[in-house]
Every structure is written in structure tokens, then in C-alpha cells.
């Protein structure tokens, strides 16, 4: 699951002191370890092998192998978590039942919709007995791209051939594949990521890619700075609309800005973002963005 930004303002506001109701529970996620210890905080990233928990003492990485259970303060997230565990264990029907429970709480939540689609994607592959012997080779052949592992997490697109399905889909070299149908691809073997990308011809797949862009006032002299309207949404800092300068940098409405000049935006209030952009006016600003792409998988003739 991609990073979460919900309720982070509560952390900034000293959420552990928020009492009231229920009087016995702080509003927080809680991780229970097999050691018997527990950790309160906000789970902001969920990966195949680890969770990232934001605590009053900063972010902490916890390893899934050490986790007995994670309980979230939102009921739907408990069912998403359990559904993901079932899906990773190969129990597609169990995962669907759990994701459907999550949908009862909030069917409009993007994470819920993605979870149902990724379970459906897995079910479809199982039902059609879809499999590929060498996923990385198949990805090169049918998508025209090669993935490379990174030390920092999600795999990077090393090469996009021209012409190719990947190129037409808007993928570029150096893009990172962060998530597929909402499931984090970080810390997974490249072969596994290739497997997730591939699927029956004509089936849909949703990628979340991460890309580095440069916002430069000199790219379009006279263009209105910063060339986009930022907005804070439940998903995080988002591009609400773009002007000529933003478009020239490659920004699109809906892009999520995860870092500005290397500083993570996860904990930045919108006012601070605006102030930061004002301070950076006239300079070259590096933006790290995440963008969702909905693709229809190519067939044998996909290249």
C-alpha cells in the first residue's frame, strides 16, 4: 500500500494527548510484536516485508516478521490489512471477503477500490491459469521495458524501448514502480514486480509511478510561479491544476508531490508548502511526484 498521510496533522498536534472518547483508547494504530511488545503510532507505509510507523519519536521501520498483528484506528484499514495478508498467502477468496468488509465502511476509499481490483486481478490470473515462465523477459518483449532493482525500495525502469507499449503508456526510464493496484512494490524482487505488471491480454492494471521533475522559472519566462495549484487531499499534497510552467515541467493535475527539493511533504501543512514554493521562486526546484496510470495490458502483439 502506498504511503498514507491521513491524520498526520493529529500527530503534529500532539495526538497522543487527545482523549475524550473512547476514554480508554488513544486515536492511533497499534502494532503488536511477537515479542509481546507493542508500538502506537500511525502506519504510513505498508510494504511486503515492513511497515513504517510514524510515532511521536519520529518514523520507525518495523519488520513484518516481528509483527504479530497490526490494529488500525479505522475499521476499514483493519480489513484491508487482513485482506492483504490473505492475498499474500494466496487466499484470494479470503482476501475478497475481507476487502468487501472494508468496502462496507467506505466503498469510495481509493485503497478499498484498489484492493478489490487487485484481488480480482489475482483471481482472474488463477482462473485463466495465466502464468509466464520468465516475467522479466516477457516484460521486455511485450511491454518494451526493463526493470532494475534499487537500494531504496521500489524498482526503477532501467530502459524503455522505442516504440513500445511502455512508451505509449507514458512510462519513462528512471520512473519507479511504487505500487500496483495499491500494493507496494518496494522491497520485492524485480521478477515479482514483473509478474504483478503482466497479466492476461486486455486486462486492466493500475500503476503508481514515481518520477523526478524539475520546475524551472527559466523554462517559460514570464510564466506564473509555481505553475500549479497545490491542494491537500486525503492522499497527500496533490496538484489540483497546472499552469503553463507546471505543464512545461511535466506536472499533471492529480499528481501527488511527495518531495520538494528532497524534503518529504508528508508532514508539511499546505500553508508551509505554499511558503516554501514562494521562497524557491526563480530557482530550479526538483519535485518528486507520484502518478497513477491505468493501463490495458498488451497481448502477444503488444510490442
Amino acid at each position: 500500500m502506498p504511503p498514507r498521510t491521513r491524520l498526520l496533522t493529529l500527530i503534529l498536534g500532539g495526538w497522543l494527548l487527545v482523549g475524550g472518547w473512547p476514554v480508554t483508547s488513544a486515536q492511533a494504530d497499534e502494532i503488536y510484536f511477537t515479542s509481546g511488545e507493542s508500538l502506537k503510532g500511525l502506519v504510513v507505509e505498508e510494504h511486503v516485508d515492513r511497515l513504517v510507523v510514524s510515532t511521536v519519536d519520529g518514523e520507525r521501520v518495523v519488520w513484518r516478521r516481528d509483527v504479530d498483528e497490526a490494529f488500525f484506528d479505522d475499521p476499514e484499514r483493519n480489513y484491508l490489512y487482513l485482506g492483504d495478508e490473505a492475498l499474500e498467502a494466496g487466499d484470494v477468496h479470503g482476501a475478497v471477503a475481507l476487502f468487501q468488509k472494508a468496502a462496507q465502511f467506505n466503498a469510495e476509499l481509493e485503497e478499498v477500490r484498489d484492493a478489490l481490483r487487485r484481488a480480482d486481478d489475482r483471481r482472474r490470473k488463477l482462473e485463466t491459469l495465466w502464468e509466464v515462465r520468465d516475467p522479466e523477459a516477457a516484460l521486455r518483449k511485450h511491454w518494451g521495458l526493463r526493470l532494475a532493482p534499487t537500494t531504496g525500495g521500489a524498482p526503477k525502469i532501467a530502459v524503455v524501448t522505442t516504440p513500445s507499449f511502455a512508451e505509449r503508456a507514458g512510462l519513462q526510464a528512471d520512473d519507479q514502480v511504487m505500487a500496483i493496484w495499491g500494493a507496494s512494490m518496494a522491497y520485492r524482487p524485480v521478477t515479482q514486480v514483473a509478474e504483478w505488471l503482466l497479466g492476461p491480454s486486455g486486462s486492466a492494471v493500475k500503476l503508481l509511478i514515481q518520477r523526478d521533475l524539475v520546475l524551472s522559472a527559466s523554462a517559460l519566462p514570464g510564466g506564473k510561479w509555481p505553475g500549479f495549484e497545490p491542494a491537500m487531499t486525503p492522499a497527500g499534497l496533490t496538484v489540483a491544476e497546472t499552469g503553463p510552467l507546471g505543464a512545461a515541467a511535466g506536472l499533471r493535475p492529480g499528481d501527488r508531490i511527495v518531495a520538494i527539493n528532497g524534503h518529504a511533504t508528508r508532514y508539511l501543512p499546505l500553508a508551509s508548502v505554499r511558503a516554501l514554493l514562494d521562497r524557491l521562486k526563480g530557482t530550479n526546484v526538483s519535485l518528486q511526484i507520484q502518478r497513477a496510470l491505468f493501463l490495458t495490458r498488451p497481448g502477444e502483439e503488444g510490442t
Partner: protein
Amino acid sequence: MIGRLLLAFLLLCGPGASCLPASDGSPVPLAMWVWDARHITSQPARDQLLAFCRTQHIATLYVTAYQLPPDDAALYRVFLRAAHHQGISVQALAGDPRWALSRYHHLPLAWAEGILAFNQAGRPEERFDGLHTDIEPYLLTKAWSDHPAQLLGGLLNLHAKIADRVADHRPLQLGVDVPFWFDDDPAYLIEWHGQVKAPSHHLLDVADSETVMDYRNYAEGADGAIALATQELDYADQVGKTVFIGQETQPDLFPSYITYGGKPAAYWWGEVAKLAAAFRGRKSFGGVAVHHYDSYRKLVG
């Protein structure tokens, strides 16, 4: 007899009507799950829910109430006042399959204590009328497959603990969601407190009511909703407890026969009429529980 009742109902109400059949002229008592807390915390949604309850004769609501921030708690009080003014009973709904694990019982117990504290802090009309659990430990498919007795034992122990707390706060009620098959499959008979019974019967011993997830989109027949819920009502009659018959209305579920989603409203009302006719004479019959608000609105809207 049932056919005549159904015909009379259809003639009286017709497709799209918002009444429910009853052999004695009174509407069938209806309960309904409300999972999405935004129906409570948003004023327009809250008003819409209450209006829907009025037109659909909903007498009981199971409303998500878990880990509410203080601001939401105030909105819940507003809702509870309005619902009670309208004669609706409201139970605080929560659950997680892992609550059946003994090592996590402190979480549901904290939830129960939180509801009790919420009630104590509010005026009588602002209080929940009951606690309602939806735990479904079998959703932990691997654990359920490996050691169901451990999960069932944990489920029973937990409800005994919650019931102890509820006993000190009467007239607060304790309601439990159970699947119909808890007492149909002898494999799930379990010894607890020295007695071997179906889990749903043990639960009826400690709780005030059960809502049987009796998910079939037809009332009659050997595998129909009436047949599948009969044992629960038999046992509840014996022990003086209440059973609600849960019926599913979400669309696009598999297998399709578990839900009325996608069926015409008139068909739904017809099958509910059959359920009501079959169970109305039972002292344990509490009514039909509709799962759930979002999908039911579409079904009968």
C-alpha cells in the same frame, strides 16, 4: 396461507412502496446495519438516514461506533437523540476477526468500556441502547482452518466478559452477529462451561440477542432462509432470548443466491413476508435485519 399473505401484501403495497407486510397489520420489525460512520457524522447524511428509517419502518440500527474522535462523539450524541425521538433503538457496532484471539481481548473490552463511558457521560436519550459485535473469526481463513476451536473458545469467552460488563449497565443490551451455519454443522459443536452446544447457542446463553446472517435470497425450501434460521429461533425460544434474521442486499456478491442485491424490490418484500409469516408467532423473533443501509437504499429506493 403464506401465498395469500404475499398476494395481499403485494396488492396493498405494490412495487416501490415503502411498507412491509404483516399478518396482523403491523409492520415487520426491521433492523439495519450502518457501517459507514459518515452517515452519522454528516448532517445531511444523518437526516437522510433518519428519514429512510421513518419511511422503511426501521426500528433498530446497528451503527459503527469504534475509536471515535471526540468531535465525532458529539455528532453521535446528536444522532442518538434524534433516533430515540423517532423511536429507533441504536446499538454500537464494532468487530474484527482477531477479537476472537484471547491475546487481543483487551481491544474489544476497551471498546466496550469506551461505549459504557460514552453512555455514562451523556443524557439518557444520548446513549446507545446496546453493544453489537460483528467478529466473524472464520474470516481468518488459515487460523480458522487450523484451529477453529481456539477461535470459537475465544469468541465465547470474549462475549462472556462483555456480557459481565453489560450486566452492570442495564437496560443496555448485547447483540451478536452469527452465521447461520454455526448451529447447522456438527463439526462446530464446542464444549464450553461444561456443556457441548453449537457456538450460536452458547452465544445466546450470554448475549441478549443474535442477528443470524441468514444469507439466502429465498425464504422457502430446504436451503431457504426460514429453514436455516429455525434452530436458532428454537433455541432462543427455550432460553428467552431474541433472534433477528439477517438478510443481505449488497449487489454483485458470490454466490449470487446469498443476496437480494439486483433483485426487484417487490421480490424482496415478498420473501420478507414469507419470513415474517413463518416466524411471527415465535416469542424469540425480533424481526428482519437488513444488511446494509447503503445497499438497501438502492434496493428499495
